[in-house]
């Protein structure tokens, strides 16, 4: 308030009138005759900032309505209050204050209060700053990767950039729970840079096992099994002027595996961006710790968290440097996020041709994926490959000390260990050949199209789904369809009508001779449609006949009906031999780690007996057999989710 002074009487009267008018407009009080009132209240500041400078910190704020002045409190520690802080400024007006009583490099914490008529508000939100002359800390961060050959690690190593990883500048003397002073991120070359204030603070640079590739806003994070990230720090140094700090994470560093996992996943993100035009919108977590014996797998809903779990058995199998194993699991992540994956999961062994079609599709896709990534890398950024020069890109290598194993999914042997849609290697081979003849973008379109067109899935998703979606989305002409069929039939997968078609009616039934086996496919003669295979055979009255389907392949599940010579009257029918019903939960194979119901063992074959009593009743003549795929659900039968709607079978009619 101003000091009293002697005022001329005329001016005093004029001022009195003005004050009365102003007071009325402001709320009705009259100067000289104030009514009794409660002490005023004043709001705390809501907007305050602190900007470090060289030997100073500038505090600025937005004014509080009605405030006459402000106080500023400061402390070396947080939280600062009116009671714990030092009041460094009192009764100040305006919206800015410069604190020049600071030491460069020392973090200071500030709060402010508002003052009205001697009443002080509560504290504002707290701000902090580290004063100092400005500088830049920059550098490059690399990690050491292991080169892989067909039989495991070659012994050579490759230096690669730690890409898009978060980098912290940490006060070396601060409590472990303190936040870093600054944060930045490496680029695609592993280069980072951050402006800093300088002073006498001892700091270090730390790169963390978390990355946000390219323009992604979804982080990839590698943690141990207790959700702590891995960090690799530099040596300590004083934060004075600019500094260049490079880091190299060697394979002997315990955290090295985490940064390799991070890099493999980062490449996966880049690949997705190239395929879909956008980085994944879903964060990805990988859980890895030296000594983890629990296998490598992708899991959603596991209590430790959703993500990829990476095996690292001390003295045994470790996967943190196995690119193909990690990309296999990344393939599962993509199937979960971009397509539909309804596989029952569990252990799976190469060479088994009788798996649940959902499992074979899921694992076949994941088996194919590492080769697809490497093919893309070779074309776009070969420096990111970790394989021995000249090595086949489709060769999958799972190192394990000196006993690792490898398998070329682009060239599996041509035998029944690697045939059929119920075999994961066959599925991978089909996808590899499609990538060669068409493009990875074509495959991605169909893979992602499954989700966009069929979600939520009502039918099992398997290789048949992929085939159907390819036909629907790509509408191949006859020549292209022939090329597609050649690729699939190269693995003994027939998604085409057999040469007895059309035989979808009694009128078009084809003759089958007693004692001779006939091979059929369950696939419509023309799409869209449902296949029915009619066969006819001669019957002698009073004789008995057995009609059987067998050699069921590619997930076939047959349903058999026998019709009388009128072609209408059903005489006998059967879904599964022995009238076994396979409904969820399916019979599981305890020898195969409980992979549930399998194909390939003729469990879903059909058999009906035309008894001598029946043939006596209906007489000699031509009888008919109708074979269809077992419906997914009906009062008398159901096709297991493990089976398919297509497939192949043999039909046999015998008579004792």
């Amino acid at each position, binding site marked *: 308030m101003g000091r009293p002074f002697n005022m001329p009487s005329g001016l005093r009267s004029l001022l009195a009138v003005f004050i009365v008018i102003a007071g009325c407009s402001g709320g009705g009080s009259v100067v000289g005759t104030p009514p009794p009132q409660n002490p005023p209240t004043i709001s705390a500041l809501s907007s305050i900032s602190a900007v470090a400078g060289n030997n100073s910190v500038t505090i600025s704020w937005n004014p509080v309505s009605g405030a006459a002045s402000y106080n500023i409190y400061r402390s070396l520690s947080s939280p600062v209050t009116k009671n714990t802080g030092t009041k460094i400024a009192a009764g100040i007006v305006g919206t800015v204050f410069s604190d020049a009583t600071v030491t460069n490099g020392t973090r200071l914490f500030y709060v402010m209060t508002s003052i009205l008529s001697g009443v002080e508000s509560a504290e504002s939100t707290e701000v902090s700053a580290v004063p100092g002359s400005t500088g830049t800390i920059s550098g490059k961060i690399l990690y050491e990767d292991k080169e892989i050959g067909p039989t495991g690690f070659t012994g050579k190593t490759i230096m690669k950039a730690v890409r898009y990883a978060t980098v912290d500048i940490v006060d070396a003397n601060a409590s472990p729970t303190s936040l870093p002073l600054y944060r930045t991120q490496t680029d695609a070359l592993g280069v980072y840079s951050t402006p800093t204030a300088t002073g006498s603070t001892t700091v270090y640079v730390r790169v963390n096992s978390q990355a946000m590739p390219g323009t992604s806003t979804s982080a990839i994070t590698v943690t141990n099994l207790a959700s702590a990230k891995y960090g690799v720090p530099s040596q300590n140094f004083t934060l004075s002027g600019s500094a260049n700090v490079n880091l190299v994470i060697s394979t002997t560093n315990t955290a090295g595996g985490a940064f390799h996992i991070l890099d493999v996943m980062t490449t996966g993100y880049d690949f997705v961006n190239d395929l879909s035009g956008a980085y994944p919108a879903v964060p990805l977590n990988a859980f890895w710790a030296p000594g983890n014996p629990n296998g490598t797998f992708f899991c959603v809903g596991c209590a430790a968290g959703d993500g990829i779990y990476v095996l690292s058995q*001390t003295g045994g199998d470790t996967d943190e440097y196995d690119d193909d194993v990690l990309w296999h699991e990344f393939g599962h992540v993509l199937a979960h996020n971009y397509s539909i994956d309804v*596989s029952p999961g569990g252990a799976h062994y190469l060479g088994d041709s009788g798996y649940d079609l959902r499992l074979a599709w899921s694992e076949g896709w994941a088996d194919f994926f590492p080769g697809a990534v490497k093919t893309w890398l070779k074309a776009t950024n070969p420096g990111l490959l970790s394989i021995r020069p000249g090595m086949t890109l489709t060769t999958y290598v799972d190192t394990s000390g000196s006993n690792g194993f490898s398998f070329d999914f682009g060239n599996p042997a041509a035998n029944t260990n690697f045939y059929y849609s119920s075999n994961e290697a066959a599925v991978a081979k089909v996808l590899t050949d499609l990538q060669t003849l068409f493009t990875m973008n074509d495959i991605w379109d169909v893979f992602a199209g499954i989700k966009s067109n069929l979600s939520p899935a009502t039918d099992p998703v398997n290789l048949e789904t992929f085939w159907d979606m390819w036909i629907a989305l790509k509408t191949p002409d006859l020549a292209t369809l022939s090329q597609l069929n050649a690729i699939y039939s190269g693995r003994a997968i027939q998604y085409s009508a057999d040469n007895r078609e059309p035989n979808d009616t009694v009128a078009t039934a084809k003759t089958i001779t007693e004692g001779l086996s006939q091979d059929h496919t369950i696939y419509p003669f023309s799409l869209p449609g449902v296949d029915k295979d009619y066969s006819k055979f001669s019957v002698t009255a009073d004789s008995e006949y057995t009609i059987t389907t067998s050699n069921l392949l590619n997930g076939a599940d047959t349903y058999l009906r026998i019709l009388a010579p009128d072609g209408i009257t059903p005489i006998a029918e059967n879904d599964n031999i022995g009238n076994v019903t396979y409904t969820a939960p399916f019979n599981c194979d305890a020898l195969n780690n409980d992979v549930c119901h399998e194909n390939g063992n003729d469990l879903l074959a059909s058999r009906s007996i035309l008894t001598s009593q029946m043939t006596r009743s209906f007489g000699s003549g031509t009888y008919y057999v109708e074979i269809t795929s077992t419906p997914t659900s009906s009062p008398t039968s159901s096709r297991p989710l493990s089976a398919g709607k297509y497939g192949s079978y043999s039909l046999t009619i015998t008579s004792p």
Partner: protein
Amino acid sequence: MSMVFYFRSLVLVLALAAALSASSASGASPMHSKPKPPVQITIEAAQAGPAPDSIKPGDVVDLIVSAVAFVDTDAMTITVAIPESAVVISGNLSWTGPAKRGEKKTLPITVRVPQKGTGDIKAEMSIRRDGRIAFSATARYIPGETKKLKTEQTRPLKKDSKGEDVIEYR
């Protein structure tokens, strides 16, 4: 099997195992695991107790070699190779024949381990298809191998700029 565990990791692993066990009961999605070769072989002491690191040169040990193929095969071969200075007291060092998927074949072997040195005993299995080895696997048993229990020093958790935990490995 080597059992050198990092203590800290072991604790974390046990926690994970408990968590995963709990998750299976709470309806977690299936685990999508990596592909495995359809052959699996192990070699271990027949009696409970004599771990490899407790065996001294000159001791007689009973070993069991177990091999499983996870595909049907009519040409499975198991061979066991022992150091020159070891003596086979009983048992066959090889077997060839058919095996059904999941069927376990075992070879019991009694061996006097080397008087000097600690040569390892190696077991190998393979399955053939069309005259060629389709898949193979090996296992080793190292008598007298010294196992050291290595414990990792507990490291303080730090914070990153999001306030999340970081463990530093310099």
